[in-house]
């Protein structure tokens, strides 16, 4: 009985560790993604990341002229035949140009993230 409980606890801890690691990896990816658009000032924070297989997120934080923190999040929902952008509480279509740029950014993101975090995936794809 005690052995069973111990085993259960070990498994739970392992699952918890994996979840935490996934969150940390995602946060790190977001930082790498933020860097592909150039540098930011100290009062700015920029993140760009792939949330899941169908969602890309671009997040910005900055201090405005009144010293107030502002933020804006843009979410791109990718479907097989269209993309919808969600921003400031509104849904919008994505123009061809914007989609092309998003694709370029996503490609660069994948290259950098693979190189810095998942080199094993690079080896597998070669």
């Amino acid at each position, binding site marked *: 009985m005690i052995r069973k409980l111990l085993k259960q606890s070990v498994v739970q801890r392992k699952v918890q560790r994996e979840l935490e690691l996934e969150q940390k990896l995602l946060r790190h990816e977001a930082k790498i993604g933020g860097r592909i658009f150039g540098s930011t000032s100290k009062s700015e924070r920029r993140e760009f990341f792939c949330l899941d297989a*169908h969602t890309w997120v*671009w997040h910005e934080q900055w201090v405005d002229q009144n010293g107030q923190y502002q933020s804006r999040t843009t979410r791109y929902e990718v479907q097989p035949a*269209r*993309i919808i952008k969600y921003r400031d509480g509104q849904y919008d279509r994505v*123009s061809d140009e914007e*989609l092309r740029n998003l694709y*370029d950014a996503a*490609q*660069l993101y994948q290259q950098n993230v693979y190189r810095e975090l998942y080199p*094993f995936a690079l080896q597998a794809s070669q």
Partner: protein
Amino acid sequence: MINVADLPPTPERNERGEFLVPPAAEKRATVLSSALEVLSSNTRVRGLRGESVAQVATTEIAPEQLEQRKQAERSAAPEEEIAVPPSISSVETEHRITTDDVVDLAEYAKRLAGQNESIHPLVRVDQPTQRGLYDQEAA
């Protein structure tokens, strides 16, 4: 004296002594690869990246799939109603948006121009791979 608790956990190794890739990292790499594939397929459907839908059809898509994609493309025309995807509508109150709800692009561009340029890196950067997502709209 070093406290053992301060040491980072030792990465697991297999029988051959190679480091094991944590499942979480493997999962993220797979998710990322799928996400790029979905995005890539979307750009092909829209005829971007220098490939026409017809070219894609001869190499990758069966005729019946092509017809489906063409229909999907037609349904994404700006004049038509845009369905809110389930993943979004589950977060927000479920509704459908029409062209009236879509932000007027000229107004949007004006808004972007009036804000601190550094807030919008996607507008500002000018390298081919990093060009602004919105510079076309802003123009």
